[in-house]
């Protein structure tokens, strides 16, 4: 067989494999849109649930998810950005730095349900925050720390080394240099990372299973010490444990969740590409 024919066959096989990866994506998203679209209405998105979730809307689940991710970013963004600053601007090439990097890789590899256990043991039980938005948000914050650190590090590394050199040669201190010659130019990348981490946090179920989530609450949460409903948990319960819910309601819930996550992702990607075009150096 000619070698060019062999190549054609080989490339076709590779292409087929790629199709087998992409096709399910199209299928999953297509199914959700097709079946969930009919269940979406203004009422669905903005009213409280009634009749054990068989009627009414998922408003509190949407709100609860937004509360959770907003509070979690309040914790993870400062710590994550500062950790990235440490690694990129201060850390020397020694054992401690290698350990920190190893720790970050490990945090990103821990199973989501183990984070749930951790949150239960530390925040709910030991620190006595109870099953609450606070416990859930803190757990999500630690879980998302690696995402923020990685994105921030890339953003900081993208700022040309010369900016630092110039600033230092003018007699500025290390922190002044970072604060005025590095950080302002890294903000777009950091922002992108933050939004991507929000998107991830919004879709997580296992970490919030034991730390915050409730299924059917009559009111919206009033403080961070309250429990709350949340979209991913909601989808889990209505697809596995509640019979007699209209199929389109289940699909509609999935639609809202996927919609929220994808919107955030697209937002982040758009910011990233627009700011890449505007790059001034």
């Amino acid at each position, binding site marked *: 067989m000619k070698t060019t024919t062999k190549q054609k066959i080989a490339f076709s096989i590779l292409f087929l494999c790629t199709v087998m990866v992409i096709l399910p994506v199209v299928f999953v998203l297509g199914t959700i849109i097709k079946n969930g679209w009919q269940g979406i209405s203004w009422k669905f998105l903005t009213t409280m649930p009634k009749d054990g979730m068989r009627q009414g809307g998922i408003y509190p689940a949407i709100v609860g998810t937004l509360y959770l991710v907003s509070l979690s970013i309040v914790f993870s963004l400062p710590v994550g950005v500062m950790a990235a600053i440490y690694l990129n601007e201060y850390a020397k090439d020694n054992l401690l730095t290698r350990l920190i990097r190893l720790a970050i890789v490990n945090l990103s590899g821990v199973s989501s349900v183990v984070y749930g256990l951790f949150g239960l043991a530390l925040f709910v039980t030991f620190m006595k925050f109870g099953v609450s938005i606070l416990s859930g948000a803190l757990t999500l914050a630690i879980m998302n720390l690696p995402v923020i650190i990685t994105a921030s590090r890339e953003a900081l590394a993208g700022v040309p080394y010369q900016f630092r050199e110039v600033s230092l040669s*003018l*007699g500025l201190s290390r922190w002044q240099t970072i604060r005025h010659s590095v950080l302002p130019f890294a903000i777009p990348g950091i922002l992108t990372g933050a939004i991507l981490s929000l998107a991830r946090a919004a879709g997580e179920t296992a970490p919030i299973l034991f730390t915050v989530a409730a299924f059917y609450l009559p009111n919206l949460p009033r403080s961070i010490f309250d429990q709350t409903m949340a979209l991913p948990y909601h989808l889990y319960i209505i697809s596995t444990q509640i019979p007699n819910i209209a199929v389109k309601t289940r699909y509609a819930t999935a639609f809202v969740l996927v919609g929220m996550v994808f919107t955030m992702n697209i937002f982040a990607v758009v910011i990233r590409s627009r700011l890449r075009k505007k790059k001034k150096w």
Partner: protein
Amino acid sequence: MVENRADIQIKIKVKQLNIWFGNILALKNLSLEIYSNELLSIIGPANSGKTSFLRQLNRLNELEANFRSTGEVILDGENIQKTKLEILRKKAGMIFALPQVLPISIYDNVSYGPRMHGMREKGVLDKIVEESLEASFLWEEVKERLKESATKLSGGQQQRLCISRTLALKPEVILFDEPCSGLDPVSTAKVEESMLKLKEKYTIILVTNNTKQAARVGDRTVFFLMGELIEIDKTQKIFTAPADKRTEDYILGKFG
């Protein structure tokens, strides 16, 4: 120009300076005196230690991971290791090989140093910006567009902007690290013109790959080779009757 030997003040004294980067000895046992208000040209082939020496004067070498040094550098009677970094770097400003403007306005670039060191009054800052830009012959070209981004300037203008930025901190010594290597001849001429004018008020040390430039602007010239100081003397003498054969060979272009 330093005419009368009785007038000479020593600005910088270097005593047996050795610099290592990891295992590489970049500068060997260097001893040297630099006089106030002179323009000292440093010439030599690549890797001769010229830039390492220059960056030692404002302690920028300390940013490198494997840097080590022995010996002393004394500025105005004080060992620079004992001087506070902030004060040292205000006293000895540096201009880099490629113009490094920050992607902010021209005004903000020049006023960057004073602002960061605490100067807030707009009136004073305006004056500093104007004086600094005039001193590098850039004022006439940019006075109408101070708010524009500095990245819009040409290479030569950007380099003169960097000079202004350094001057804004009222240094006493200016360190030029191959400042014209990225510039066209016209811009190079303008930068050299600034250097000659600045010599009246500042002490200038110029590292350059361009021997002709060294001959044009330097009062004295020093020749480095492989980390060692080979010869230092009045520019006129170095370029017409160098004492060391290696100096002569380099100037004639036989190597380097």
